[in-house]
């Protein structure tokens, strides 16, 4: 009888241990889970013109992410002028099943190829999480900054060019008009004289 009860106890012990283990694993799984997308919002990337970088933080977990800190060290000051938005942003709370966007505007200083790499995000999975979770955002990848000259050739309003065109077309319009106008005045004079008579 004693041995039997011991056996049963042992079995229950194993069952309980298994369950606790399973629960513990589950425990590890829950909490906030962030997906961070980094997107370049420009159609044309041109030197010395604004590049809009958008960071979107999606929380797909079942708890709010706390102390979310987005840090982007990929825009070094030698190559980029920082225009607006924080490159080191902090969002206190991202509730579950929501998203938060953060935008930064930078200007590339010189034309050429540039590899947009990921931003780093630190956050707390739960309020009592022992350590900060490190997450990398997605990478927009390799891009090419065209020079301003090249861009201007395609997209400027060409005011000077049109003015030059106008000046150049002026003689071919003005000379016939002058001829016509002088003859017209001459005939008007004549007709006035005849009327007087």
């Amino acid at each position, binding site marked *: 009888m004693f041995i039997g*009860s011991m056996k*049963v*106890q042992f079995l*229950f*012990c194993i*069952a*309980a241990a298994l*369950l*606790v283990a*399973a*629960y513990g*694993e*589950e425990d*590890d*799984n*829950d909490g906030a*889970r*962030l*997906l*961070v*997308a*980094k*997107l370049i919002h420009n159609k044309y990337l041109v030197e010395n013109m604004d590049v809009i970088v958008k960071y*979107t933080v*999606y929380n*797909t977990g079942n708890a709010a992410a706390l102390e979310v800190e987005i840090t982007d060290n990929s825009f070094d000051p030698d190559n980029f002028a920082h225009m607006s938005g924080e490159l080191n942003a902090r969002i206190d709370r991202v509730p579950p099943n929501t998203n938060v966007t953060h935008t930064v505007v930078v200007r590339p200083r010189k034309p050429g190829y540039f590899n947009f790499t*990921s931003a780093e995000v630190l956050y707390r999975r739960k309020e009592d999480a022992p*350590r900060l*979770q*490190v*997450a*990398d*955002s*997605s*990478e*927009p990848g390799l891009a090419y900054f065209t020079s301003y000259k090249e861009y201007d050739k395609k997209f400027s309003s060409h005011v000077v060019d049109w003015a030059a065109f106008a000046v150049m077309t002026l003689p071919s319009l003005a000379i016939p008009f002058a001829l016509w106008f002088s003859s017209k005045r001459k005939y008007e004079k004549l007709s006035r004289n005849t009327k007087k008579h």
Partner: protein
Amino acid sequence: MRNLPLLLLVALPAVILTMSPGSIPVVSAQEDDNDDIVDVEGEENSIVTDEEAEDEIVTASKDVITSILFTEPIHNPLSTLELPAGKLVEFLIGFTNKAEVDYIIETVNTSFRYPMDFNFYIQNFSTIAYNKVVKPNHEATLAYSFIPSDSFAGRPFGLNINLNYRDANGLSFNEAVFNETVQIIELDEGLDGETVFLYIFLAACVILTLVGGQQLLSSFGRKSRSTTRKATIELGTVNPNNVDYNWIPKETLNMINKSPKTPKQSPKQRKVKRSIGSDD
């Protein structure tokens, strides 16, 4: 009294099971066990198990948690995913490394498959190499986008999103992050070229019928009006050319009246006159 710890041991797991929302993994694990047992026992479908074994040469690592989120279009996980044809589809893949070693995310490839048989490929999208190192206890997000062809509109497809990665020891893994049937839908835009021209055609038809009707009506009206006029106004042959003499100065009129009415000449006579009178 000796039964008290035993009772506790029974009660505690039951409480945990009922309280915790994540009791599903436990159940699924048990189910997996059952499946294994069934596979071992039932050897009559050994071919199937062999195939499965072949497929499972590379599988997901136990230390990696992946997740997927469609950001374009926004997708409700309870319903089947509907992708608009010809529009950009974007999704994010989350990758969490819970192991003690680095993991390297190599590629992501996406394909449309025949929904009845997922081994039958219909379209492969680009395999994108990320080559991203994920350190232990770190997370990474990958972005991927593709455009389903316009010609696929209105058909279901099996969308398979495959993630290939390896650990620092060189062991390769492969995980289907998404493997479900999706519906490609056609977006009905407000202004479609076809419908615009249809409306123009309809408008033209309406205008044509209006013009035709107006013509018909006016012709009827004219017929009746002309008959009445003929009855009332009798002009006779006094002024056959409809010349308004009020405008002509009196002198001219007198001149016309004075001049003897030349008898109407026939061209022949005129010719004769001319030949006699002049030599032009």
